[in-house]
């Protein structure tokens, strides 16, 4: 098991956001967490990344306990987080943003290779690499956010709402890229409100509701589940 979350409870002051959830991600898998706004999806990812501290529970990565490591240590071990709302550095150039994604890496040659790789994945970034990231369109910013997260050469990529606020055509592009990544062997844990698209591309899925996991299983099975259809797929 590559990533294992066990009985995780997270609080914001006295409000419990996660009520003992457990989930696993295996190497090469594309796993998605679907659920409505406020269900705890982003909280889950932020806790895995070490930004939030759980009150109970453990997070194991490649068999090692990483629950209380600093965020930069977690990135170093191979977990990369592409946050909700893109959060690119708007005052830095596209290239500088990409280099920040590879901040901890000293293997210059490989970094150069990965720069070439992400620019191949997102050709628009190559064209705009000297531009300030704040001047990019929303879709381009999302691509930059994903590319930046890939620059650490993660063993697991945590993707938080990559389709949020994008035009339908761009949503398709983003999901194409996610499938492409998966085909290239990148393990992905995808958080999405767009359950239809997420369940279509994922191997397995978890349905998160008010801090607990309601359902889990192969994505295609969940997509056919009556409850899921009613709650998340518009009937």
């Amino acid at each position, binding site marked *: 098991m590559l990533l294992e979350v066990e009985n995780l409870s997270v609080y914001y002051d006295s409000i419990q956001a996660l009520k003992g959830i457990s989930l696993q991600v295996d190497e090469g898998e594309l796993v998605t967490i679907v659920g409505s706004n406020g269900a705890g999806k982003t909280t889950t990812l932020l806790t895995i*990344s*070490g*930004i939030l501290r759980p009150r109970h529970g453990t997070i194991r990565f490649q068999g090692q306990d990483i629950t209380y490591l*600093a*965020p*930069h240590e977690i*990135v*170093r071990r191979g977990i*990369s*987080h592409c*946050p909700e709302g893109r*959060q*690119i*550095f*708007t*005052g*830095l150039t596209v290239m*500088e943003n990409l*280099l*920040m*994604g590879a*901040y*901890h890496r000293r293997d210059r040659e490989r970094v150069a290779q990965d720069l070439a790789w992400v620019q191949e994945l997102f050709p628009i970034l190559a064209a705009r690499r000297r531009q300030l990231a*704040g001047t990019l369109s929303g879709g381009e910013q999302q691509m930059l956010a994903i590319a*930046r*997260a890939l620059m*650490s050469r993660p063993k697991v990529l945590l993707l938080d709402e990559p389709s949020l606020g994008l035009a339908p055509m761009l949503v398709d592009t983003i999901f194409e890229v996610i499938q492409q990544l998966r085909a290239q062997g990148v393990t992905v844990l995808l958080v999405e409100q767009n359950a239809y698209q997420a369940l279509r591309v994922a191997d397995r899925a978890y349905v998160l509701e008010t801090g607990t996991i309601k359902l889990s299983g192969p994505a295609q099975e969940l997509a056919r589940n009556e409850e899921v259809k009613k709650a998340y797929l518009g009937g």
Partner: protein
Amino acid sequence: MFSLPYIAQQLVNGLTLGSIYALVAIGLSIVYGILRLINFAHGDLLMVGAYLALALLLNTALPLGAAVLLPMIIVGGVGVLVERLAYRPLRGAPEVAMLITSLAVSSVIQNGTIMTLSAQPRAFRLPQELIAQQKLGVVSFSTLDAVSVALAVFLMVLLTLFVTRTRVGIAMRACAENLRAARLMGININQVIAYAFAIGSALAAAAGFMWAGRFGSIEPFMGFLPGLKAFVAAVIGGIGSIPGAMLGGYLLGFAEIFFVGFLPPELSGYRDAFVFTLLLLVLLIRPRGLLATGAEREG
């Protein structure tokens, strides 16, 4: 009304004073940019730098350059230590907690200096070659003024190269814009914050030498005024922005000199009131400063 040479002379004076404000303002601005901390102890590091420079000038036969460089290195270290001991434990606490702590740090540094060295002002005597007056066309200035401006510009160029060409420097800008995203990218923010304090404090020490040389004496509370003025400069320029701090520093330096130099002498006692009026005017027109970048950070 005013002769051209007189105006030129005032420009030179403004440039000298502005260089000092700019150096101090940069330190305030980079720390604020990352931590949202208004570091009230910043001016006191300028004072520590001046005392160290004096000690080196009086007690050692080291070249003059060392009396500038060594205090910069030591005070840079002091800045890192202060962050580690006083501010880091408060990371994540409300911003006001760190603000109050910086007042306490300021008080500790000032009173520590009084206890160990006394509150008596001391003469800050520079070697003759620095005091010598130079004439360039119609304007005159001391060698110290020329050295101060040149050193300030050199340090600012160096800093600009650092934040645009180096990994840690770019990370510093990234942290100032979005600390959480920077952490998610694997940037060790403690390391970046330490760099920010080291650089800011070292620049304050350099400014301390210039300030002390300008006024000829030093005392434990000498950091207050340049610290306050530099804060005004940083806010005028857009606090958090390095180019803003530079611009604000020079603007303030020129404005202050021009106020004193071109208005009736009986008004010159109001120079500080004038400085704050200028701040209010700038903030009325551009509430976040002249070169403010990015959106105000949430949470």
